[in-house]
């Protein structure tokens, strides 16, 4: 094996071990009981890989590496300590950082190697840089929208898809030209800038409710660009990590798009935000029944089985800790309380689970949509907190509804439905929800946190044991 120069053989062996640790790390994520071992395996693999890389034979200067590692740690620690409600924007930001790293390395490699670069390498490098830069700006846009620095509403204009498509086409044409003529270095910056602009335009038309799909897709792009970088650098560990990350993002994108009833190609080609501005429809004066906290508490304490359906509104109102108090108060009275989590509830995959786990609600009480839907007919009370479209029965019955066909939580089948809502304004998608006008539905008007708080007071203060 004398083809390995210097320390290359031990480094390759370390990378092999690190790859195995990365795979184990993801394997252990399958269950909450082993998941923390997964983090440790990942950390160990990462540490080994970085230490091994420092042995690389061509190294002449360690000063800037050390400075960069320290600076990165200084930036990374606060990013690891953000509030749980801020996890979606933190995740988007970290996709941006990952993509930035890949894009910069790709750019540096291009200027070091061109024009002596094989066609295949140039093709992979172009893919790395185009994917990396569009993921960089796209993720920054997504993070800005989630942090509400940028408007959450989709920004659309006529011919948007055509403009986006043309931009991407120009970037690809430039890439092809560079593959054929790698000496045309002056074209490289144009390819880079166009891909960066494409990332911005790709995410502009996307609204907040579509964020789970977008974040998953950007995750997949980030993984694929890292794998492409692995090809350029002939680094097998990078190919493995990129492929793992890419497949993870792809799987999550597929789950999210199924949960929103979009075809996967529809999502892949960036046709987000198409479901919007449904005609407000015939606004005949439909009657809703409302109830007070006192009445709601009486119904809840008389129930045997309660299912709570949280949505993004719960996160916005920061109501998860009050929800936990409600869970405690009801459990104490012998009520069976569970939570029904729709895959796209919140702003990223699994967002609601993290918020409820933070509020100390045991994870075996958190039910996936497929596991709980058949239980709604035997449920006494379904309590909807800050969720709207994912409970809309029109998705099952009304073929004219923009969300027709989207899998929903069948809360309308519960004996009583209670919906905590600020007012009668329609949800994000602008679609009226027939659930609110059903005979078995009670509207609880008010702020989610305040209303749940007053239900808890009724339950613990008025009668019973506390």
């Amino acid at each position, binding site marked *: 094996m004398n083809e390995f120069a210097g320390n290359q053989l031990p480094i390759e062996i370390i990378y092999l071990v*690190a790859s195995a640790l990365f795979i184990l790390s993801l394997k252990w994520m399958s269950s909450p009981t082993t998941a923390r071992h997964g983090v440790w395996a990942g950390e160990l693999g990462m540490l080994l890989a970085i230490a091994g890389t420092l042995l690389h034979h061509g190294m002449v200067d360690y000063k800037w590496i050390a400075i960069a590692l320290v600076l990165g740690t200084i930036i990374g620690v606060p*990013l690891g300590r953000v509030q749980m409600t801020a996890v979606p924007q933190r995740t988007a930001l970290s996709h941006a950082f*990952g993509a*930035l790293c890949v894009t910069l390395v790709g750019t*540096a490699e291009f200027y070091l190697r061109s024009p002596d670069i094989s066609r295949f390498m140039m093709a992979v490098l172009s893919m790395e840089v185009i994917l990396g830069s569009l993921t960089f700006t796209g993720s920054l846009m997504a993070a800005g929208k989630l942090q509400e620095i940028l408007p959450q509403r989709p920004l659309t204009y006529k011919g948007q898809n055509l403009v986006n498509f043309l931009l991407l086409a120009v970037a690809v044409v430039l890439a092809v030209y560079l593959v054929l003529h790698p000496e045309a270095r002056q074209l490289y910056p144009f390819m880079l800038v166009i891909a960066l602009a494409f990332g911005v335009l790709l995410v502009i038309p996307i609204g907040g409710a579509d964020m789970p799909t977008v974040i998953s897709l950007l995750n997949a792009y980030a993984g694929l660009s890292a794998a492409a970088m*692995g090809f350029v650098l002939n680094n097998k560990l990078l190919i493995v990590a990129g492929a*793992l990350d890419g497949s993870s993002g792809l799987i999550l994108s597929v*789950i999210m798009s199924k949960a929103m009833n979009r075809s996967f190609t529809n999502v892949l080609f960036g046709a987000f935000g198409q479901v919007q501005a449904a005609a407000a429809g015939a606004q005949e004066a439909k009657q809703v029944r409302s109830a007070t906290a006192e009445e709601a508490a009486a119904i809840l304490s008389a129930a045997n089985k309660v299912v709570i359906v949280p949505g993004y509104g719960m996160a916005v109102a920061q109501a998860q800790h009050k929800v936990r108090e409600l869970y405690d108060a009801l459990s104490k009275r012998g009520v069976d309380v569970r939570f029904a989590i729709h895959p796209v509830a919140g702003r990223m995959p699994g967002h609601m689970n993290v918020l409820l786990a933070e509020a100390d609600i045991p*994870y075996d009480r958190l039910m996936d949509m497929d596991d709980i839907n058949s239980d709604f007919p035997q449920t006494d009370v379904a309590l909807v907190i800050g969720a709207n479209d994912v409970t809309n029965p029109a998705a099952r019955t009304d073929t004219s509804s923009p969300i027709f066909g989207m899998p929903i939580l069948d809360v309308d089948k519960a004996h009583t439905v209670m919906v905590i809502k600020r007012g009668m304004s329609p949800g994000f998608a602008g679609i009226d929800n027939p659930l609110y006008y059903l005979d078995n539905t009670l509207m609880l008007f008010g702020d989610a946190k305040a209303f749940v708080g007053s239900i808890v007071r009724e339950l613990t203060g008025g009668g019973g044991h506390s």
Partner: protein
Amino acid sequence: MSGSIVINGLFIFMLAGFIGFEVIRRVSPLLHTPLMSLTNALDAIAVVGAIVLVGEHKSTLSTILGTIAVIAATSNIVGGFLITDRMLKMFKSSRPATKS
């Protein structure tokens, strides 16, 4: 020579992709958020490419770009592992006290 490197790479990519699909398909939806922050941290292994770029010091441009790349990737590694562990620590099973 270059051709065999490409084919080797493609084999590795294909196999790792299949492993990824099979392993990640089994992750409970409960843990999708920590899964994403973990894969994000693992993906920051791109730092090794950036470290070599800085260490070899082949040109001023490559050193500058590489240094920024190392900073970006390191912040993902540190932040990603930290927050994943913090999230996973919060997932607790129901205690007997809450069930009675």
